[in-house]
């Protein structure tokens, strides 16, 4: 503020409504959100300030308080919104404030309900834009404009993903880990990995579909490969094959199944190993390869089918990731995305496969916050914005 502008106006600290704001905002208006609207899931990250002074609390607008209370006192929202409490990050410093990061997700299919909720809570009186990424930021832009009277500041999903990963890894202790002894049930365990000197690395983002991004240095990244056989495929096929309805059910079934009854292995074809090409007998030669045979179909149960679907999708992703890493001369591969949520089977399979097929040259890494990075990236972007 210049001394020449007459009587000085108080700075808006972002906790007033848009109407009451005098336009001199030192920070963006609360609430601080980041959204990532994907093909199957919408991810929301909410920053709850915990350094609220008594003065500020008095001035806090009713609407803002309502939203804050609604989000932080519930772990379930509506019929299918969930807050991942175990991923909560306390004492996070953002733009001069201190607070807790909350991670919320709900099916993109319920976007209409979310929009209704935002409208009901009068979100538009507090913020004029929401930073959002993912395909849904484009697909639902008009709905947000019309119903909630909010503009969506659309951001690129890959850029937000990388930005989110960088921020969380700097902020959350032991964010990055790998699996030691992934093929040994007894000895298998999570080991923290120091990701502070990460470049170059590959990010394999397993959402509905898969994108593979090569990150050469800060700001130097590009999508180099991908596959349409992702988490959406696993869920879709499982639902068709087993009649299950949710991701959690599919994972539960897979945990109890045996894929060897469903898949045709090298030894089923060769009667042993295929030595010439170093293919041991236990390797899968043809996924679902026994299922054209009615006798075999009679001996398998739903759990076996779910397991085979999981193994097939996971191994295919691992194989493509490995070949991509080889092509780009990168030996650190980070797997993220909500496909890996509550899915230690897939994580361990990826860890084992990467190590086995690369003879120890490649390392499979994982991040605790799974599929929330895009939303976090958006939150960071919001804070960067100057008013």
């Amino acid at each position, binding site marked *: 503020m210049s001394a020449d502008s007459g009587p000085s106006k108080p700075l808006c600290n972002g906790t007033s409504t848009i109407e009451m704001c005098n336009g001199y905002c030192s920070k963006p208006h609360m609430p601080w959100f980041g959204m990532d609207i994907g093909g199957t899931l919408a991810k929301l990250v909410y920053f709850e300030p915990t350094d609220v002074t008594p003065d500020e609390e008095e001035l806090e607008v009713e609407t803002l308080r309502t939203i804050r209370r609604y989000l932080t006192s519930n772990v379930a929202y509506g019929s299918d919104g969930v807050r991942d409490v175990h991923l909560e990050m306390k004492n996070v410093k953002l733009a001069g404030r201190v607070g807790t990061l909350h991670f919320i997700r709900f099916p993109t299919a319920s976007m209409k309900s979310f929009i209704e909720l935002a409208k009901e809570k009068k979100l538009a009186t507090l913020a004029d834009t929401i930073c959002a990424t993912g*395909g849904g930021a484009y697909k639902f832009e008009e709905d947000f404009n019309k119903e909630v009277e909010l503009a969506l500041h659309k951001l690129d999903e890959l850029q937000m993903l990388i930005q989110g990963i960088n921020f969380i890894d700097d902020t959350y202790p032991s964010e990055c880990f790998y699996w030691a002894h992934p093929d040994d049930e007894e000895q298998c365990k999570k080991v923290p990995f120091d990701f502070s000197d990460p470049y170059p690395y590959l990010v394999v983002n397993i959402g509905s*579909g898969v994108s593979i991004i090569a990150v050469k240095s800060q700001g130097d990244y590009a999508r180099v490969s991908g596959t349409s056989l992702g988490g*959406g495929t696993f869920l*879709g096929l499982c639902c068709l094959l087993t009649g299950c309805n949710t991701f959690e059910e599919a994972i539960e079934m897979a945990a109890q199944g045996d894929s060897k009854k469903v898949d045709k292995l090298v030894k089923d074809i060769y009667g042993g190993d295929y030595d010439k090409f170093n293919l041991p007998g236990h390797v899968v*030669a043809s*996924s679902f*390869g026994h299922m054209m045979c009615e006798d075999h179909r009679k001996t398998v149960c739903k759990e076996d089918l779910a397991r085979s679907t999981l193994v097939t999708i996971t191994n295919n992703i691992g194989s493509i990731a490995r070949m991509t890493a080889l092509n780009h001369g990168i030996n650190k591969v980070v797997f993220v995305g909500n496909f890996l949520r509550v899915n230690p089977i897939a994580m361990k399979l990826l860890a084992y496969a990467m190590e086995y097929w690369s003879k120890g040259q490649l390392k499979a890494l994982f991040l605790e916050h799974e599929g929330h990075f895009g939303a976090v990236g958006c939150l960071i972007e919001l804070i960067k914005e100057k008013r």
Partner: protein
Amino acid sequence: MAEYYAKSLELSGIPALTLTNLKHAERIAFDIGGSLTKLAFFSKISHKRALYTINPNTKSNCETEEEGWRLHFINFETKYIESCLDFVKQNVMGRSTDVNGKIIKATGGGAHKYKQLINEKLGVEISKEDEIQCLIKGCNFLLKNIPDEAFIYEKHSNPPYKFQSPSNQPLFPYLLVNIGSGVSMMKVISDTEVERIGGTSLGGGSFWGLGSLLTKAKGFDELLELAEKGDHRLVDMLVKDIYGGSYDLIGLPGDIIASSFGKAARSASDTSTHLHERIKKGKLS
């Protein structure tokens, strides 16, 4: 065009002519794969050839009879190998003179697995040949000698199939993608040198297996028929289903599949008969 070449015959309805050819087979070889067993044999056959110049004075025929070699191909499911061996024994093995020695060459995983069975049924020794060597020998032979063997498919051209003649262009190196029950990808460097550089377990066997689980089709051919009628866009999640259009920043058009079967979870309760067809198409892609 390719469909005409690849039309299969029911073994029970095998025409007498083909049977005769089998009886006169000079040499037989097997490729016993994970799902299918391929039998190749050649026999001498007589055929008529049209003459384009006729001498009016001699009143010769406008056609002439010639003898030549014909290469035949038979496929059957490996699970029926015993019946097939019985069939071969009845129709071929009976003649002690015609079979070239008492050794039959075979390849594929089954050459290892069924060696004993073949020995018992046919009284012959199997000479196990390496699958990959046989594959490239066969490929190279056909590519160098048979016109219209290789073809290119261009979706928007008319006709879409463009057949290639053997040319003087160097054949090597080429990438060979063998799509059987599973898939092997090989770099073919010469007539004998080959390197397996990759592969995937998602092959023909997966399509056949998943198709058998998801539809009521009986057999591979019926699965293909279903797939032809289906619309995968009702089962797969396309980029435009997620973005509302194309994902311009990385150049992904709206019609590209973002997540195969990505819509299947929501329509799992859909019991319409068309679901089967849609699913088939989804899996082929």
